[in-house]
């Protein structure tokens, strides 16, 4: 089907999130990492504040703190200063330098600068890479996947071409998309490893942003996949990518090392979970663990219970492309009418969807979704949902009106069940509210 856009000059109530935030998120999933945003102070302050608000965790990020004159004369002097300071003070294992629209428009060549810097400092043992992520292209999702790709590129540069590769067929590299919560990544790791595989998630926010009580403050990331595991992942026998946006990093591994890959575009609902488990069953030769057989029945039963709630209901979904695709597949299974699907930007996955998709903002969601019973979007959608009197279900990024949103599971049978119950409950409460207001008091 086609991808549409409503014609209007200004963006009203944007759902797009800067690409650089996606990069910062990706780097949170690596142990002892420091994302360094090459831009003005706000370019790091906003993502930091927003990520902190969503995950309720401290977020590691630094900036080259560009000011007007730095941009005009020599922006890289700031970057060098920042690198010196971060390296000498915190000794990170991984540094990701994230170019912004500011450095992009000013034409700052920090890639070359980084190369020289690494050569001069004789930087070994760590991983330092750069990625260009101006905000006038893409959104959180593309920033995230580009960063993972850049990371993989750098790893391949460092190790891949050197020496021979001893493929470990019992080891799988998992590339989780940006829309997955820490609990989602954990669930995926569990599912895959329950078939007897070693799993290395790249990046792995399930051990860094899921909440832990490690004490001792560090400005670097705490938790996440350590560098040696990251490098170890190059020996994996297979790559599993979750979300269409993660295909490119997976292909990178395939092209450079010949690692075969499998992309799961949808990650939610019965069919998507069936597909994943069936695939794992086939490649491992192991039976599907009893726990998942149980969960499958639980899911089907809860969908039966809930179908009265969903009958005749309509939903509007406004999310990042991969997430939108995934949620739409789940809604399809519930038999909910899909009033409008709104994506933050266009990707091949979205363009190839069977349903009509709109690229736009939350104002478009309000207009196109008028009359919908359920509104699924990030927390920015609360006001719009109120205006069109839809039940509001927070999803995606950022979510700040709910505790523990970052730990909710959406993948696997368990995830689908959790979401179905949650959406059903919201609709039930809404119905009760309506009934109450229609009772006439004498």
């Amino acid at each position, binding site marked *: 089907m086609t991808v549409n856009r409503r014609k*209007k*000059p*200004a*963006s*009203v*109530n*944007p*759902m*797009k*999130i*800067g*690409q650089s*935030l996606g990069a910062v998120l990706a780097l949170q999933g690596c142990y002892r990492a420091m994302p360094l945003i090459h831009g*003005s*102070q*706000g*370019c*790091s*302050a*906003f*993502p*930091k*504040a927003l990520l*902190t*608000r969503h995950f*309720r*965790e*401290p977020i590691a990020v*630094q*900036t*080259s*703190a560009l*000011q*007007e*004159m*730095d*941009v005009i004369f020599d922006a890289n002097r700031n*970057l060098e*200063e*920042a690198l*010196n*300071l*971060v390296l000498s*003070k915190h000794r990170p294992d991984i540094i990701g330098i994230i170019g912004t*629209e*500011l450095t992009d*428009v000013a034409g700052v060549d920090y890639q070359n600068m980084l190369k020289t810097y690494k050569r001069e400092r004789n930087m070994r043992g760590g991983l330092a890479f750069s990625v260009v992520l*101006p*905000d*006038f*292209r893409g959104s959180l999702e593309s920033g995230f996947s580009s960063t993972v790709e850049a990371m993989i590129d750098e790893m391949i540069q460092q190790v891949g071409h050197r020496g021979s590769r001893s493929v470990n067929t019992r080891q799988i590299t998992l590339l989780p998309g940006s829309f997955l919560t820490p609990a989602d990544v954990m669930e995926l790791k569990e599912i895959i490893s329950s078939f007897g595989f070693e799993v290395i998630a790249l990046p792995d926010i399930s051990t860094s942003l899921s909440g832990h*009580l*490690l*004490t*001792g*403050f560090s*400005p670097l990331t705490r938790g996440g996949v350590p560098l040696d595991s990251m490098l170890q992942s190059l020996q994996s026998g297979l790559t599993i990518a979750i979300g269409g946006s993660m295909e490119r990093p997976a292909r990178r591994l395939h092209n450079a090392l010949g690692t075969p890959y499998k992309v799961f575009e949808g990650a939610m609902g019965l069919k998507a979970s069936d597909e994943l488990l069936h695939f794992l069953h086939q490649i491992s030769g192991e039976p599907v663990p009893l726990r998942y057989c149980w969960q499958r029945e639980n899911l089907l039963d809860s969908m039966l219970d809930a179908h009265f709630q969903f009958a005749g209901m309509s939903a509007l979904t406004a999310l990042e492309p991969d997430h939108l695709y995934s949620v739409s597949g789940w809604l399809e299974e519930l038999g909910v009418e899909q009033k409008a699907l709104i994506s933050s930007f266009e990707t091949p996955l979205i363009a190839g969807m069977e349903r009509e998709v709109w690229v736009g903002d939350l*104002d478009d969601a309000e207009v196109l979704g008028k009359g919908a019973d359920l509104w699924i979007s990030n*927390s*920015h959608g609360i006001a719009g949902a109120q205006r069109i009197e839809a039940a509001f279900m927070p999803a995606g990024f950022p979510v700040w009106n709910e505790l523990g949103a970052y730990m909710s599971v959406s993948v696997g049978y368990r995830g689908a069940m959790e979401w179905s119950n949650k959406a059903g409950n919201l609709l039930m409460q809404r119905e009760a509210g309506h009934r109450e207001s229609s009772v006439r008091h004498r």
Partner: protein
Amino acid sequence: MKYSILSEGDEEPMDPVRKNEFDSEACGSIAPKAKPCPRPKPGEAAGGCSFDGAQITLLPIMDAAHLVHGPIACAGNSWESRGTLSSGPSLSQYGFATDLTDSDIIFGGEKKLKDSIDYIAERFAPPAIFVYSTCVTALIGEDMDAVCRAAAERIGIPVIPVNSPGFVGSKNLGNRLAGDALLQYVIGTGEPEPMSPLGVNLIGEYNIAGEMWDIEKLMNSAGITVTSRITGDARYKEITYAHRAKVNMVVCSRALLGLAKEMESRYSIPYFEGSFYGAKETTYSLRQMAFLMNDREMERRVDRLTEREEARLSQDLRPYRKLLKGKRAVLYTGGVKSWSVISALKELGVQVVGVGTNKSTEDDVRRIADRVGDDTEYIPEGGASRIIKTVRERKADIMIAGGRNMYVAMKEQIPFIDINQERHKAYAGYEGLLRLAKELTYSLANPIWKLAASPAPWDKEAPPYDR
């Protein structure tokens, strides 16, 4: 009615930012004694940019539209992130952006800006549109002032350019630049209703968590009216006649002291710096208002009110004071709160053993020194690790800081109170002090601190292989 955004005889648009001129002023006073805003340190910088600061100051004009001219993230990453509340209109809570793309950057975004302004004016009919520049639009040399001027004439409502791109400096500089935009384009362009009583402008009060409402209630019960709120829960129109007020109260000096000084010289409105954190400061501020209004009757009313309120408060506070006495706190916040919250805490019997001074003016630091003892540590800069260190070394019981440091404190299992713009609790006025006392007590007494510090039962036992 034809509306000109420029006051009479003032045909100059807002000057572009000149760095030298502002660097020395950025810290808040027109003629600073020393200490210009330091250059942020690459690799160790913290805090927002000027664009952020400008929005913090102007977004509480609730009925206006606020349009960000730049790529999407400047608006997309920042809208709905501030705790300022509205009692009515909500247009300022909409996120508007010109959402520039590659080709706009190459061919210029002025046409898009013009179309966006027209679109917003037609669809939402706001009383005014504020247009914010961003790093990219400043860098490619968009003539925002000209576009805004032409738009104002075309659509007949004020369109105000705010030249505060992120890379000119700190958040505080942005506050100031926003104040300059108000001076140049808004204040003095309207007149109040003929018979309406005039009173005090509250400058630098952003109605975080509804604090403005508590303050206003107090002022009203003493018979003092608020003329313009600059800009907590403000309406555009009331700021246009701010020049008719009799007194300016600067609530946050760091941000908008310059605005008050300029209004004094332009319109001869006396100003004073005050705060509403703590009973003492609140009483002082109310008295100062009445005094500067030059109204004996009002002064008497204020005296009666403050006596009554203070008496009631001290009654209400009694149980909390008992619990809070001797507790030690580290306070890390900016500007006016650095010293005024110290007063509030002192009234509760809480000792401030460490205080941040990184965002304070010379005057603020002097005021801090007036309020704390010699054994209080000043934390000039240095982010989370420095604060944690002070908490540990000074054996503080609680940390009071902004939301950005909240989860750092949680990781260290230090009780925490959020004092900055994202918070949901109002701490101003007498009511606010009581609320602060309650929050401190709840936070300190929460069972989680004990639970989190206790290991799992199997970790308590000696491991079997050790025997």
